[in-house]
C-alpha cells in the first residue's frame, strides 16, 4: 500500500517537474524567437552592375554611396521591414562583362531592380532588362538613346542636354569661336558631341569633333586634330579626361580647356593638369550647398573620402527607390509603376522633379572652374 502511494507521489512530482520544464523551455524559446524574429523577412535584393575595374574604376565610390544608403535604411528597419541586400557584380567596364553580370544576378538572385553604371554597360544590358521585365536604373549614363522605346529602363543622371548648357554658357562668356571636342567613342560621348553641335547651330562657332576608344591611352592624334581651336572640350570618364588634359598641357596648348562633369571627380582634380579647366559641375561640390552637408560628413567619416557626385548619386538612387516603395508592394512591376508616376525627390544632388511618365531622373549642372583642386561656381547667366 505504502509502495503504491509512494509510486503515485513520485509520478505526480515527475509530472509537475515536466510541466515546469516545459514552461521554462517555452519561455526560453519565445524569448529567443522574439530576439531573432526581426530578421526573418526576405531581403529586398538590389542588383548592382558596377564598374569596379577597367576605365570606370572610379565608380567604386558609387558603390560606397549605395552601401551607405542601404546601411542607413537597414538600420531603421529596411523597406517595409525587409532588409536591403546589395548584390554587386563587376562589369569590368565592358559590355560583355555587364551582360555576364546581369545574367548571373538574374539567375542567382533575381533582384527587385538593377542599378548599372556607364552608358556602354547600360546599353548592353537594357534589352536583357526589358526581356526580364525588371527595372534597370542607369547611372551615371548620358547616352542619348538609352531610354528610347524602352519600358523598364530609367536614368538617374544628367544627359548631354544637361551637360552642354553650362558649357555653352562658358563658351559664350569666353567668346570661343572655334571649339575642338575630344569625346569617348561610345553613346555618351557621341551624344555630347551631337548636343554641342545642336547648341552651337545658328551661332558663330565652328566645332571640330574627334572621338577616342575607351581603352586608349595615347591621345596625340586626337589632340593634333583640335590643336588650332580656341578651346577644347573633353567628353569622357575622369581617367580619360585626366590623361587627355595631361597630354594637351604637354603640347603647350594655349586655348581654354573644358570638360564634362566627370572632371569634378575629387581624385582626378588632384592632377595639376586640371588647374583652370572649366566644367559643368553638380552643386554638391559647393561648400555652401546645404543639402549634402550631413551626407558629406557621414560619407567622409565612413570612407575617409570627400563626397563625390558618384557616391551621392549611388546614395540617392537607393534612397529614392526605398522612399517610393515605403508602404508599397515589393515587386518589379510596382517599382516600374512608382518610378513612372511622377514625384518630387529632395535628393542630395538637388530638388529633383520627375514628371509622370518620364524615365529621366535628372539633376542640374552648373558652370564652374577648377582652381587649386577646388571647384568654383561661375555665374549661370553670363
Amino acid at each position, binding site marked *: 500500500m505504502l509502495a503504491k502511494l509512494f509510486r503515485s507521489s513520485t509520478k505526480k*512530482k515527475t509530472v*509537475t*517537474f515536466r510541466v*515546469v520544464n516545459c514552461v*521554462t523551455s517555452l*519561455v*526560453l524559446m519565445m*524569448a*529567443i524567437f*522574439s*530576439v531573432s524574429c526581426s530578421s526573418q523577412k526576405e531581403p529586398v535584393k538590389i542588383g548592382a552592375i558596377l564598374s569596379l575595374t577597367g576605365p570606370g574604376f572610379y565608380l567604386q565610390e558609387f558603390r560606397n554611396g549605395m552601401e551607405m544608403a542601404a546601411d*542607413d*535604411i537597414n*538600420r*531603421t*528597419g529596411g523597406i*517595409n*521591414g525587409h532588409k536591403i541586400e546589395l548584390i554587386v557584380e563587376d562589369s569590368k567596364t565592358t559590355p560583355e562583362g555587364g551582360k555576364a553580370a546581369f545574367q548571373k544576378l538574374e539567375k542567382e538572385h533575381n533582384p527587385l531592380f538593377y542599378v548599372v553604371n556607364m552608358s556602354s554597360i547600360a546599353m548592353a544590358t537594357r534589352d536583357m532588362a526589358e526581356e526580364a521585365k525588371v527595372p534597370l536604373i542607369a547611372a551615371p549614363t548620358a547616352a542619348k538613346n538609352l531610354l528610347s522605346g524602352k519600358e523598364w529602363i530609367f536614368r538617374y543622371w544628367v544627359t548631354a542636354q544637361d551637360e552642354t548648357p553650362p558649357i555653352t554658357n562658358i563658351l559664350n562668356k569666353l567668346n570661343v569661336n572655334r571649339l575642338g571636342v575630344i569625346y569617348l567613342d561610345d553613346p555618351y560621348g557621341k551624344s555630347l558631341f551631337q548636343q554641342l553641335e545642336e547648341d552651337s547651330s545658328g551661332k558663330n562657332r565652328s566645332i571640330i569633333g574627334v572621338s577616342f576608344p575607351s581603352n586608349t591611352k595615347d591621345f596625340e592624334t586626337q589632340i593634333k586634330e583640335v590643336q588650332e581651336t580656341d578651346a577644347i572640350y573633353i567628353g569622357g570618364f575622369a581617367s580619360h579626361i585626366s590623361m587627355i588634359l595631361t597630354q594637351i598641357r604637354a603640347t603647350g596648348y594655349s586655348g581654354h580647356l573644358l570638360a564634362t562633369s566627370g572632371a569634378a571627380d575629387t581624385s582626378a582634380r588632384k592632377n595639376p593638369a586640371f588647374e583652370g579647366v572649366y566644367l559643368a559641375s553638380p*552643386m*554638391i561640390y*559647393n561648400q*555652401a*550647398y*546645404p*543639402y549634402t*552637408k*550631413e551626407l558629406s560628413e557621414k560619407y567622409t567619416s565612413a570612407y575617409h573620402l570627400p563626397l563625390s557626385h558618384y557616391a551621392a548619386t549611388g546614395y540617392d538612387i537607393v*534612397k*529614392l527607390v526605398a*522612399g*517610393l516603395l*515605403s*508602404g*508599397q508592394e515589393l515587386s518589379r512591376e510596382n517599382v516600374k509603376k512608382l518610378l513612372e*508616376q*511622377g*514625384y*518630387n*525627390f*529632395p535628393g542630395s544632388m*538637388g*530638388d529633383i*522633379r520627375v*514628371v509622370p511618365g518620364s524615365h529621366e531622373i535628372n539633376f542640374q549642372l*552648373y558652370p564652374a572652374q577648377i582652381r587649386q583642386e577646388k571647384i568654383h*561656381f*561661375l*555665374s*549661370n*547667366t553670363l
Partner: protein
Amino acid sequence: MRIRYKILTGYALIMLLFFAMIFLSLEQGKRSLLTSATQNSAMIADSILMKTAHNIQKRLDEFSWYGLDSDLQQALLVSNTHFAALADHDRYIAERDEEWRQTPLQTSTPLMTEITTSALSHDLRRKFFTFFELNYGYLGFSEIFVTNSYGVNIAQTNRTSDYLQADEEWWQRARKDGQYLGGVEYDESSGIQGLTIAVRLDDHNGDFLGVIKGVLPLQSLIRTAEIVTREYQTTEIQMITDAGILLYSSKVAQLGKNIAAEPYFLKIKEDSGYFIDQNSSGRSRLFTYIRSEGLLNSKQLNWIVMISHDPEEILTHSILFEKKILLGGIAAILLATIIAFYTARIIANPLTRLKQAAASIANGNLECQIKQASRDEIGDLAQTFNDMAVSLSESYQKMHLEIEERKKAETALAVHAQELAVIGDDLARRNSELDEFTYVASHDLQEPLRKLTSFSGLLVKDAGDALPENARKDLNFIIDAATRMQALIQDLLALSRSGRKEMTNLPISLDLCVDDALYALAVRIEEIDAVIRRDSLPQVIGDKTMLTQLYQNLIGNALKFTGEQRPLIHLSAEIHGEKVVLGVRDNGIGIKAEYCDRIFLPFKRLHGMAEYPGSGIGLAICRKVVERHGSEILVESEPGQGTLFSFTLTRAS
C-alpha cells in the same frame, strides 16, 4: 515537491520577477523617449514654420530693398515717362498685350526679346537667381518680373503669360497695400508650386513707379527652412495646406497631391498634437504636427507642418538594450538554473543520502553511516544522524538482549505455569479425592458412630444401674466422645458439602439471607441480649443457601466470642459500582494479628473447648463460600477491640 524543484522554481520566479521589473522600466523609458521625440518634433515644426515665414519676409524685404536701386528706379521712370507721352497709352498697351498673349510659348516677339534681354532683366537674374543658385544651390525665385506704373512688363526673368498685369489682383493689392502675399499656385509649365509675392515700387518722393512680382518655389523655400541635422534616418517632414494639399516632403513624394483622405491627415484635429498611425505595410509612424495660424498673418497660408518618424528608430537603442537584456536574461536564467541545479544538488543530495540511510536503518541496517562531505549545517545533520544511528544501534542491542532475556523468562514462566497447572490439577484432584474421602469417611463413619452412641445409650439404659460406677462413667465417656465425634463428622460433612454443593448464581436479597440467619440464631441473640445493626443490604448474585450459611456462621461467631460489653454486631454494606463490600463487625474479644491467617483453617481453634465450644470449622466454611462467589474473605481485628470480617459480592443489576 522535492527541495531541488522548489529551489529551481524559486530561482526561476525570482529571475522572472527581476526581468519583469526591468522590462517595465524599459517600457516606461520607451514612452519617455517617444514623448521626448514628439516634443522635439513640435519644436522643430514650430521652427520650420518660423523659418519659412522668415524666408518669405526676407524675399519681400529683398524686393523692397531692390526697389531703392537707382538703375531700377531710372528704368521705371523712363518707362513711365514714355507711356505718359503716348497719346493713347491704353490702346498701345491693349494692342501689345493682345499680341503677347497670342504668341506661342516657344516663340518670342521683338518686344518680348527686348524685355527679356534688357539690362534690368539680366540684373534680376544675376541678383535673384544666380546668387541663390551659385551660393546655395537652390532657386530663390522661379520667376521675377517688374511692371511700370501702367502695369506692363519692363523686365522679366521668364516669359510671362500677359503683357499687361494691371488687371491682376497681386498688382492691384501691391499698389494699394504696398505688398502682396498670395496663396500657393501650381505652375504647370515648370511643374512646381509657387508662392506669389509682389511689392510696390515708389520713387524717393513716394510716388508710385511700378510693381515687382516674384514667384517663390515652395520646395526650395521650405527645404531651406527645414534643413536640420536629422536625429533619425526615418524622419519625414511635410508641409500641408489645411485643405490637404501636399506642399513639401523631405522624402520622395508627389507634391501638389491632395492627401486630405489619408488616414494620418484625418487625425489632425487640434492646432498641435501627436499620434501613431500605421501605413499600408503595417509599419507604425509617430506623427507630430503644428498648424500655423496663417504665416505672416495671411489666411491663405494656414499650413500644417507634420513631422513623422518610425518609432522603432527612436527606440532603436532601447530595443537594442531590450534585446541585450533579453539575451542577458536568457543567459542569466540558464546560469541561474545551473546554479540552482547545483545548489539543489548540494542541498538535496545529502538529504537524499540521509533519506536512504534512514530507509536503510528502517530496514534494519543499524550499522549504516552517512559519508560526511561538508562542514555546514547539513554536515552537522549528517553527523547527528550518524550519532543517532550509533546510539540507536546500541539501544537496539540492549533492547534485543532484554527481549531475549524476557523471552527466556517468559519461556521459564510458561514452563512453571505448566508445572503449576499440573500441580494445581494434581492438588485439585487430591482435594477432590480428599473431599470425596472426607465425605465418604464422614458419611460412612456416621453409621457406626450412631450405632455406638445408640447401643451405648441402650447399654446405659438397660444396664446402667447394674454397672459399676466406674464402668458407668467410662460408658458415659464413650457416649460423650462418640457424640462429639458425631458432631465433628457433621461439621466435616458440612465443610465438605460447602465445597461440593452445586451453587446457583441468581439475584438474591441479602436481607432475606440475613433474616434467615438471624432467625436461626434468635435464641442465642436473645440469650446474650445482643444488638444487631444492619445497613440496607443490596441484592447480589449468588447462592442463597450458601450466603445465609455465611452470615449465620459470621454472626454466630460474633455471638460466641463476646467480651464484657453488651454484644453489638453491625452488618455493613458499601457499594462500589457493580461490587458491594459487605462486613460483619462485632465488639467481641478480638484476635491477635498473628492468628488472623489461621482462623480460616478447618478445626483450628484459638481457645479451649471448655472456654468457647465449637468444632473450628465455621470460618473455614465461610472462606469456602466466599471463594466460591469469586471473592476472598478478610479479617481485621485487635484483641479487645472486636473483629471485622469483610468480603465482596457482585450486585444484581
